[in-house]
Each structure stands twice: as structure tokens, then as C-alpha cells.
């Protein structure tokens, strides 16, 4: 027998892949870019104080066929996690677990961790689809590679995908913030506004080969080119702060001055700031992420900064969505969450005193049970 889903949408998948992932970032996808920038300017629907329940431009879809008899009670919820290999995912998983606790109707919550292995996640998904779960949440490790497994699971139970997508729309809903283009553009636009034409920008990227990050960079590059900023260095840091610090120090000694620092995610932002300090230079306009240590540095050092968030509150949404689906309520086919950007103005909303350095400000977790202790805060 074969576990390959009968309705293999191979053709469709491959063409889609060429846009979203894969070589996608090499040739910039104008349509996706435009859509994301438009969404960034749209007002979300939903409760204002609960961004994880908000949705942008939703196309609702009917879920009656998934409704659990007798309503969403005694729910067994399952989650195939790509892994917890970075702080963002760790904060996210805490959010999700806390969200589950909020709902008494969830009686069992099974999490399988793939530890970053696509291969294992495929097996995990297969295993979970035969385990009597009422609904399956998937946070895929890699966009392209989990498609078949998810397709297979779709035939057996409602599947909710979030964070990274898969190349099939068989799931009930796909939850994610606006996307990489919006993220990269938000950061880049900030710099183009602060740095004079011809200014030198250093771009710090985590690692090649991750599509979301490629999109962020593609959008930023476009913005820099348009504004006539000079990208002096594009380097990969592997997420290692000491490598980031070395890169910025070297760039400083090579170029004399750096007028702006762009980065595709926040893990190494503080190291970059410190590189300037240690060289005895003023920190130029810099972008980071909503990670606590960066916000802290921003506050303490009064930086000119911006921090687009890839919000960890999105980890709450799949649970909510699952319950809605099992209750027969409609959900958006593509549940696009707002993607907040931390700026001077809204800084205090995201900065929380006493949280650990690798915490993420846009966690939406402040009212969850166990906060702040479970997130390591005081």
C-alpha cells in the first residue's frame, strides 16, 4: 500500500513552490510582495486587544463537516512540531501550551517533536493521524518537504498549518503573520527614511537556504536599491552573536563608517549594537526583532531603531482555530495575522520589564496562565 495521497497535486505544487519557496527568493515574486505590503496597511478584523484572534482580509470557509458531534468537548488535540531549536519556537510552544490550558474542553494535547528532521516530522504526522486526534496542528520544518504528509493527513482529520506553509491547501486553515516581504520591507523602509542616500548599510542574515528569511532580504534589497542606499556587506551569522559582532567590527574597520544595520532576525542585534560601542562609535539606525535583549538595549541606549516582529502570539491561534473548526464555526482559509512592528511610539506595549533576554515581546502571553514565571520572567 502507499501512503502517498491519491490526489497528488504535483503540478500545482511545483509551480507554487517556484514562487514561495525553493528558488523563489532568487527571482523576486512581485505579486506576493505587493499583496503583503497591502495587507500590512489593512486594518485587521477581530478583537483589538487580542491580535492572535485578528485576521486580515479573511476569506471565510465553512467547517461544518469537521464539527465534532456534541460540540467541541473532550477534544484530543495533536501537534506536530518541527522542533524547539530556537528561542522563538520555545516561547511559541509555551504560548501554545498555555492557550491549551485555557480551554477545558481540550482533554488531551499530544505534541511530537521532530527535532528539525523533515523525515521524522513526516513520520510524526503519519503517526498522529492514526492516533485518534480530533484535529492536527502542524508547524512544518520545511515548506516544500511536508506537503505530501500533510496531504495524507488531510484525508483523515482537520489539519491546521501555521508558521511556515506547505504547498497544498488541503488543510482547513493556514495561519501565519503577513510574511517575510512585509517584515523585510518594514525594516528597510525605516532605514531608508533615516539614512541619507548613498549611506552604507550592513545586512546581517542568519543563514542561507531558509525561504522566509530569503523573502525578508529580497524585500529589503529592493527597498535599498530603490532608495539608493549602498549595501556594503551582506553576511551570514549563523545566529551566532559573536560571529555577528566580529562581522560588524570588521565591517567598521573596513568601511570606516556604517550608516545603518539591517537584519533579517533579531538574535544577533544586540551583538551588532555592542560592536559599535566597543569600537567607540555611535550606533547608527538599526533594525532588530522584538526580542527582549534588543528592546532592553534600545531602551538603555536610546537607539534609533525599529523591530518588526514575527509574532510568537501566532502559536495561540492554531488552538483557537482548531476549537472553532471542531465547533463547526467558520474560519478563514488563510488566516493572516497582523504583523506588528515595534517602534518608538508603541515601544512600551512590547517591552516588559523583568522578562528574560531571549523572550519575545509580541508573545501576546501577558494574560495567559503562568505568566510571567513560565516564560522565565519575574
Amino acid at each position, binding site marked *: 500500500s502507499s501512503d502517498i495521497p491519491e490526489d497528488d497535486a504535483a503540478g500545482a505544487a511545483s509551480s507554487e513552490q517556484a514562487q514561495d519557496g525553493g528558488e523563489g527568493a532568487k527571482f523576486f515574486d512581485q505579486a506576493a510582495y505587493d499583496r503583503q505590503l497591502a495587507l500590512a496597511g489593512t486594518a485587521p478584523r477581530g478583537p483589538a486587544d487580542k491580535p492572535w484572534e485578528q485576521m486580515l482580509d479573511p476569506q471565510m470557509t465553512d467547517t461544518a463537516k469537521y464539527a465534532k458531534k456534541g460540540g467541541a468537548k473532550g477534544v484530543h488535540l495533536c501537534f506536530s512540531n518541527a522542533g*524547539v531549536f*530556537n*528561542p522563538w519556537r*520555545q*516561547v511559541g*510552544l*509555551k504560548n501554545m501550551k498555555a492557550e491549551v490550558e485555557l480551554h477545558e474542553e481540550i482533554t488531551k494535547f499530544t505534541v511530537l517533536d521532530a527535532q528539525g528532521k523533515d523525515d521524522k516530522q513526516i513520520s510524526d504526522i503519519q503517526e498522529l493521524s492514526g492516533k485518534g486526534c480530533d484535529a492536527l496542528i502542524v508547524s512544518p520544518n520545511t515548506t516544500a518537504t511536508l506537503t505530501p504528509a500533510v496531504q495524507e493527513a488531510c484525508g483523515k482529520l482537520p489539519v491546521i498549518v501555521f508558521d511556515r506553509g506547505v504547498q497544498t491547501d488541503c488543510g482547513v486553515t493556514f495561519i501565519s503573520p503577513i510574511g517575510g516581504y512585509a517584515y523585510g520591507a518594514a525594516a528597510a523602509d525605516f532605514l531608508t527614511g533615516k539614512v541619507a542616500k548613498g549611506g552604507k548599510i550592513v545586512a546581517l*542574515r542568519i543563514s*542561507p537556504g531558509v525561504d522566509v528569511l530569503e523573502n525578508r532580504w529580497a524585500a529589503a534589497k529592493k527597498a535599498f536599491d530603490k532608495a539608493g542606499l549602498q549595501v556594503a*556587506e*551582506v*553576511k*551570514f551569522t*549563523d*545566529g*551566532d*552573536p*559573536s560571529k*555577528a*559582532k*566580529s*562581522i560588524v*567590527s*570588521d565591517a567598521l*574597520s*573596513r568601511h570606516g563608517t556604517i550608516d545603518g544595520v539591517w537584519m533579517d532576525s533579531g*538574535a544577533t542585534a*544586540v*551583538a551588532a549594537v*555592542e560592536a559599535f560601542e*566597543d569600537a567607540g562609535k555611535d550606533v547608527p539606525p538599526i533594525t532588530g526583532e522584538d526580542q527582549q*535583549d534588543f528592546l*532592553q538595549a534600545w531602551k538603555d541606549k536610546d537607539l534609533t531603531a525599529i523591530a518588526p516582529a514575527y509574532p510568537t502570539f501566532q502559536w495561540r491561534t492554531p488552538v483557537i482555530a482548531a476549537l472553532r473548526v471542531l465547533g463547526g464555526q467558520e474560519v478563514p482559509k488563510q488566516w493572516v495575522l497582523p504583523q506588528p512592528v515595534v517602534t518608538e511610539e508603541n515601544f512600551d506595549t512590547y517591552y516588559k520589564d523583568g522578562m*528574560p*533576554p*531571549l*523572550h519575545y515581546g509580541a508573545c501576546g502571553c501577558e494574560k495567559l496562565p503562568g505568566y510571567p514565571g513560565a516564560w*522565565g520572567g519575574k
Partner: protein
Amino acid sequence: MTTDTTTTTTTARTAPARALRRLGAGGPVYALLVILLAALAITDAGFFEPDSFLAFVKRAAPLVILAAGQYLVIVSGGFDLSVGAVVTAGVVAGAELYGSYPEAPWLLVTVGLVMAGAVVGVANGLITTRLGVPSFITTLGMMLILEGAVFYWTGGSPQGVLPASFREFGRGSAGGWLPWAVPACVVVGAAAVWLMRSDFGRTLLATGDNDRAAHLAGVRVPRVRTLAFVLSGAAAALAAVLIAGFSGVSAQAGRGLEFEAITAVVLGGVLLGGGRGSVVAAMAGAFSLQALFTLLNLQGVSGALESTVQGVIVIAAVGLGATGRPGLSRLRRHRSQPSGGTTS
């Protein structure tokens, strides 16, 4: 007797001559280092200005310290693959400690971490020597255990902020110009040189060379080997303190450092398998590696291709160093020729 003349004339060689000979043992690595530094000077005119050169040394310091520790283990005939995990664990544990005791004095935390690193070394050493598990496997297992344990303990991410006082050591400068990491590096280097000239060091080399002969000469082989692991663990923890100071909390501070350290040591002409090599050359290997990273950085080699260049250079350096010198022609472990053992 002719004997006297041979012995006396040849030993009349002076100390500097001997020092030169010692340096010669690591010949290729010094050449490599000089080439890389020259290339750096050409690439970046200001490289040898005191500030930027000291900054370079500061950045190299953790790797140099790791290499010194790794050297001790390698020269005694083992491997320490756990040092990267010790660094990660050290950084995370430091942050975790400060999370619970924000007022902890930096010196106490530093000493505590170094001791903890030493304890890891004790475990490595005892498992290797007493249970007979090859050190490759012992330290590979230890790497999994440490990484797992520290994140399990912290629930995935460290909880505390490292205060400036603790970070001063890795980040700040003495008198405003001399990064603390530089004297730390010098002290560790001097200590390593002293250690290798001491009874212990000589014993360690002999043990790596021929453990049976060492045992029969009264060397407590398991203890000596364990001590090498202990020092390597402590060195790794010290490197963790420097790295934590240099760049702050990170959950992947030590990733891949074990391979970098081993590469540095091998670049220094040290024989994998034990018994041969100088610690100064091993540390020079670490400097070379750091110089190579910096050069690749400054040269603006396409970020992604950096590792390719690095791989080629390391293979070439070790390959040329190996075939160029007859004495080193076998980086493989020598087999002691059986000497007519069955004659009657």
C-alpha cells in the same frame, strides 16, 4: 670514551637553539600564520594598528584557549568533542544563574563555571579511562547530554541577563585599551607552556606516546589522562565566560567550536593520536584559523562560499604540512615496531 664527546658536544647547544628547534616542530603553522597575517595587512591597511590588532587577538582568545585545552587531550591520545557543548552550557548556565541571583559577584560565577567545566572533564576522563569507552564516544555522548541537560533545565532558553560586571571580562579592556581577553589569552598560553614543560606535561606527552611504557614507569595513566580532560573542560568554560562577555547570551554560543578547536590543533602540527606536538603551535593554529575567518570576512568572499574556502585551506595546510616534512609525514598514529619479541 668517544661517548663523552658525543654527548657533551651536542648538548652544548644553547637554550635559544633549543627554542628554535621547538618552534621548528610546528614549522608549517607559523608559516601559515605569517602568510595569513600578511594577507590581512594587505587587505586592511589598518590591521596592525594596536587597536584593531588587539581586537583581533581578543576575538581569537576563546578559540586559542579552547585549542590549548584540546591540545592537552589530543596529545594524551584522545579527543574532546564536548567543548562546544561546554561553551554553550556555560553561557546559558551563566545567564540562568544571574536569572536566579542577579547580584552574584562576577568572580564567583566565573570561578563556578570554570569548576563546572572541570567537573565535566572529570566525567569525560573517568568514563574514558575507567570504563574504557573511546574518548570520541565519551565526549560525543557528553555533548548530547550537556546540550540536552542545559536546555532541559532552562526550559529551552536562558532566563537571566548577564550583567556588565560579568561581561567586562570578555568585552571590556584594562586601562581602556587592553582587552581583558588578551592578558587572559597570554596567561593561559603561558600556563600551558609552563604546564607542558613541567613534569606533568612531559608525563602527559609520554603517556600519549606510549601508555604502557608510561604505566611501567610509574605514571598514573588514568589520572594523567583524566587531568587532561579536566583542563580541557575548564578551558572550555573559561572560553565560555569570554564568549558570554564578548557577545552576550545566546543559545548556540558554542556550536561547532569543538571542530574548530580540533582543526586548530591539527593545523598546529599536533598528531591526532597523541605523543607529539607543541602547545604553542596548537595555539598558533587557533590564531591562524581566526586570521583565516577574518580574512575571508574582509575579503568579502561571498558569505556562503566562505566555508568552501575554509575547507580547502585547512585540507591544503594539513596536507602540505604533512607531506612536506619527512618527520611529520605520517599524521597517522605511528605503530611501534614490534622488536623481536619472540626471540629466545
